[in-house]
């Protein structure tokens, strides 16, 4: 009896330990708050990085944790962006309502799409996600009357937050707004991924047959996580619409899905922070290299991808944790 109790308490303390906030994590979020005071002139760019990071987090849930390779995740980002944009253009100016409806719409779309993913192997899944993304792009492209087609959706007006804080030209309100929403969603995702449910997802990624054998309902788990990831992607899309007051058709493009995948890979999958770190590095490098020459950027990105897949698995955070382990190992040796 007491044996079982001891075992149970060990499991509980294991889960608690995963859930504890580490000092590096607290420092990360404090740095983001600090950005507001240190770089007041580039807050618009900073909010775009945050939004991309949030979007990458949603991809991390299905790619890093559940192991579904997708090339069409921009579909949900785009659904969120257009939902928020269309609402704002037709008289519902409240930003929070926009976020809510965008998230729900994207979530429903994700829920429906998840059933298409239950069939076939990896390549079939890849093609279906790719197809859904391209299909949506074509739909928005041809429905010029409602979406503005390639010219983008005009006339998006966003109301004041709580009726008090208006969105200004320098993106001050926008940055704080994006930061708070991102943080809340991050806390939600973090606690979910550290729960037994998150562990179940990881076991599906590692070995489907064994996961099934220990009683994990695989298809239900995948449907869940795909819908939740779609909700977060939709909210990220809505944030982009609200902070830029515009929706371009490129929110749905293949390039966005591919870039997102690269951001997550560069940052490191299944690390929670990989998406944010990747977004910072990717967007800064893109900004710098594209100014020199757009072709350089694509060339560099391609080389980076090839080198990373061949030699540097795990991305920046993966490499970083390897360095830390090496350092610890070395210090332990010194002591003994």
């Amino acid at each position, binding site marked *: 009896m007491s044996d079982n109790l001891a075992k149970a308490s060990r499991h509980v303390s294991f889960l608690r330990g995963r859930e504890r906030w580490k000092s590096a994590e607290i420092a990360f979020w404090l740095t983001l708050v600090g950005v507001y005071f240190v770089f007041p002139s580039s807050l618009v760019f900073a909010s775009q990085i945050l939004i991309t990071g949030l979007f990458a987090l949603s991809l991390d849930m299905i790619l890093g944790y559940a192991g579904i390779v997708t090339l069409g995740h921009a579909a949900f980002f785009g659904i969120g962006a257009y939902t928020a944009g269309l609402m704002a253009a037709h008289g519902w100016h409240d930003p929070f309502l926009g976020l809510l409806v965008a998230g729900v719409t994207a979530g429903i779309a994700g829920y429906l799409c998840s059933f298409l993913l239950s*069939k076939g192997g990896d390549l079939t899944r*890849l093609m279906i996600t*790719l*197809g859904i993304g391209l299909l949506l792009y*074509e739909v928005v492209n041809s429905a010029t009357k409602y979406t503005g087609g390639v010219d983008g959706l005009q006339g998006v007006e966003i109301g004041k937050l709580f009726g008090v804080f208006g969105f200004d030209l320098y993106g001050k309100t926008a940055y704080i707004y994006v930061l708070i929403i991102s943080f809340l969603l991050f806390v939600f995702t973090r606690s979910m991924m550290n729960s037994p449910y998150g562990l179940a997802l990881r076991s599906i990624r590692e070995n489907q047959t064994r996961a099934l054998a220990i009683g994990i309902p695989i298809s239900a788990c995948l449907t869940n996580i795909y819908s939740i990831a779609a909700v977060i992607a939709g909210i990220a899309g809505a944030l982009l619409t609200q902070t830029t007051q515009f929706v371009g058709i490129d929110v749905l493009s293949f390039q966005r899905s591919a870039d997102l995948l*690269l951001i997550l890979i560069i940052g490191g999958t299944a690390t929670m922070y990989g998406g944010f770190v990747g977004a910072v590095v990717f967007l800064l490098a893109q900004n710098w290299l594209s100014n020199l020459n757009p*072709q350089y950027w694509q060339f560099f990105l391609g080389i980076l991808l090839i080198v990373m897949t*061949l030699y540097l698995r795990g991305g920046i955070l993966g490499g970083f944790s390897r360095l830390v382990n090496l350092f610890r190992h070395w210090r332990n040796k010194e002591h003994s």
Partner: protein
Amino acid sequence: MHSFLGVLFDGLAYGALLFVISVGLSITLGLMGFNNLAHGVFAMAGGYLLVTLISKAGIGFLPALPIVFCVVALGSLVLERTLYRPLYKSTPLNQVLLSVGIIFVATAGVNYLWGPGQQPVVIPEWLSGQYAVLGLDLSRYRLFLMVIVAAITLALVFGLERTRFGAKIRASVDNQRTAESMGIRVDRVFQLTFALGSGLAGLGGALGVDVLGLDPNFAIKYLVYFLLVVVVGGPGSVFGTLLAALLLGVADIAGKYYVPQLGAFIIYAAMIILLLLFPHGLLGRRKSR
């Protein structure tokens, strides 16, 4: 009625081209299960090589074709050795990332060397113009395409079904481990098949400059088409690939001709539906590993 036959003819020629480009991908995918999204890069390389050979080196259209085939095949061998080989046993994600990287490098490189515009190709006089058959104007070039593709298909089927090397390929696709234990060097077989398939893709890209167009975004623009042909046809099946390519070609041309306002919508919708109905391809065999 006439317009329908015309659409059918154009669609078949288009499908034939898709077949030549994709068949290599189908066999390599069936053989190694390598998710190679960069197959279109070989086709693009073939197209640019042909354009350069004709305009810079002054070589004729017909003699340039075998040169394109050989150069692309040899080039792909180098890539196979250095980039693809380390990732055969890796996860699909890594394979996808590697091939996306190759696409990016190729696109940027081509853009840098040849510029972003469409590349023109001069087709010899005896191939341009039209034949009037039963009141229907058939483009000579497209007829030529179909003849070449029919010849390639016959050669492929003969090679796969009747030669020793073909038997080795079929054995390796069906069951890699058993084939290995029978003394077939699967990696060698794969290497040769990869080179052959890439060479064919290069040839297809060269033949297709006039029909598909050629610009730096070629590999991304047609990525979906090549993958679709392979996935719908069932990886590793030549007939399945042919059937899928012809179906897709006719469907795409018919869609663009009759309902142009829908754009590429039809092809993507058809793709999702076909994949849901036949997750293993139209004529795909289930693999036993």
